[in-house]
């Protein structure tokens, strides 16, 4: 890993040249929020964003995506893998990308995800503004982000650009970079360490204790039903989650009735019919019928089931679920702190 420096003055020309040369995706404003979009003008890039509505998983795993196109008996997979630069990913979202990388690679490797992932250069950037639901300062502290190709940190005089991979280093040619001074690297480290203390929300318990407690209260039906009382089963907390990766697959016919597509779209385990399965002969069963069961499932997935596999909780503290839940019952800090205190 090498550290470089680019002055504040040279930064915008760097972005402009990058946009001219590559397809660049970055945070931009959308009404009063932010989203990752194709950036076509340097001035649209908003590295001062707090959090985006959807996490960057949508770049590798789009909300709706054709998997196969067919015509009569012929069919072909459709994998899009245009080279691109995903710029301005906060460290918590990099952690989530590491997790979806692992989850989409295991067993039945997902070629669509992996192709888009490999075609993308991920440039992380430091958090300049903290979202009012963020709790990334107190979760998964021992899980280091590692899936990025470079990390950009704004310091007083400009930006420190730490390259982690050859893909990241390949971007150096677009800007007036020089080797960073030790003091500049130290300043960047300080910026990234200090921000960890700035989250408005926190989970006051280590991940192992939370996982243990979740298993203990698993059978406490009344607790889960109470927590889920106001749940709309709308699935918002799932689909905006950077580590949720479930999808539904359906066929779509074109007008000619010969050709069409098999497409997938994001699914959500909080929705009422997610766990409805066929028993054959037209009969169905829903194995997570109540709101409480579905609510519990999300917390088990995020706080217990995947911990061993991922090396930590499947939650990175972005707070998107807390914000997306109109009933205000999804916030992990609130729910976990409540569960940790629930009568044994």
């Amino acid at each position, binding site marked *: 890993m090498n550290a470089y420096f680019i002055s504040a003055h040279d930064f915008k020309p760097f972005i402009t040249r990058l946009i001219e040369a590559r397809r660049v995706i970055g945070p931009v404003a*959308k*009404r*009063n*929020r932010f*989203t990752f979009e194709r950036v076509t003008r340097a001035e649209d890039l908003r590295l001062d964003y707090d959090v985006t*509505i*959807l996490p960057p998983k*949508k770049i590798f795993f789009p*909300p*709706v995506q054709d998997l196969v196109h067919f015509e009569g008996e012929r069919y072909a997979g459709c994998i899009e893998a245009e080279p691109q630069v995903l710029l301005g990913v906060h460290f918590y979202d990099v952690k989530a990308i590491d997790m979806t990388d692992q989850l989409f690679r295991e067993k039945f490797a997902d070629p669509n995800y992996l192709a888009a992932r490999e075609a993308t250069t991920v440039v992380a950037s430091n958090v300049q503004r903290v979202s009012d639901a963020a709790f990334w300062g107190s979760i998964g502290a021992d899980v280091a982000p590692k899936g990025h190709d470079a990390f950009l940190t704004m310091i007083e005089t400009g930006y420190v650009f730490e390259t982690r991979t050859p893909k990241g280093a390949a971007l150096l040619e677009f800007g007036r970079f020089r080797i960073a001074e030790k003091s500049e690297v130290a300043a960047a480290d300080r910026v990234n360490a200090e921000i960890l203390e700035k989250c408005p929300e926190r989970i006051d318990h280590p991940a192992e204790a939370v996982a243990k407690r979740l298993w203990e209260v698993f059978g406490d039906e009344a607790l889960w039903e109470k927590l889920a*009382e*106001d*749940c*709309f*089963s*709308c*699935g*918002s907390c799932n*689909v*905006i989650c950077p580590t949720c990766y479930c999808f539904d697959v*359906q*066929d*779509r*016919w074109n*007008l*000619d*009735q010969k050709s*069409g597509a098999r497409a997938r*779209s*994001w699914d*959500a385990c909080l*929705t*009422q*019919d997610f766990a409805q399965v066929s028993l054959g002969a037209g009969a169905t069963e829903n194995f997570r019928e109540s*709101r409480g069961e579905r609510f519990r499932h999300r917390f088990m997935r995020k706080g217990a089931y995947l911990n061993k596999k991922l090396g930590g909780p499947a939650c990175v503290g972005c707070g998107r679920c807390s*914000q*997306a839940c*109109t*009933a*205000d019952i999804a916030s992990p800090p609130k729910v976990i702190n409540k569960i940790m205190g629930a009568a044994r």
Partner: protein
Amino acid sequence: MGKPTVAFFDFACCEGCQIEMTNLGDEAFLELLNHIDIVEFREAMSETTKEPIDIALIEGSFTREADRARLEDIRRRAKVVIAYGQCATTGGINALKNHQKDYKEFVYGHAAGMPHLASDSARPISSVIKVDYNAFGCPVSKYEVLQIISHLVHGKEPVIPDYPVCMECKRRETVCRYHEGDHCLGQVARAGCGAPCPASGIPCEACRGFVSDPNLASLKKVLREEGGLSERRAETKALMFTANETAGRPA
């Protein structure tokens, strides 16, 4: 199903859902005619039929006992019956009158006593005959109807969403109405429309009705506390397209 015969029928409605199909435009509509044989479609042709039909699309709600025989006749003749549009699937906007007494005077003034205005409460088609599939919406989604028909043509089971509009807003990354100080019914409204209204800055009115298990107690609370609606407004807000579901179905 080969080239199925398809017929549109209408009861108490504006027939806008029939018009919506013609909005597919010449090219798409003419291509569709290569795959289905439309035998009755009052908004687009003069011919009618008394013959058996493969797919009956029934628009409008049931508001008159006198319509029962016609509905039963359609059911007898049709292999597949689709309740077509919100009036047919739940009673839709017509069901607003089920909970009002003075609507005729209010709307028609001194003509309120005209005999053709006499009708009973508005009910879904399924209250009279067995319905195989629902094409929800006010109006229907023409693209969804195309998929329903395509699936039937290919002998597949059509898939009708039973999750809320929030999912579709999130998939297209729409800024939540609640995050702009507005209210919305998206949390309980049935998806399938693609959520165009919130994307244009307009709250969802649940024009496709509710999902099958809407949390209405929570909705009232959120409309009041987050959406800033009054107690009474929060109570009546969801009525527009779902009066039969929120205020109870007429006996």
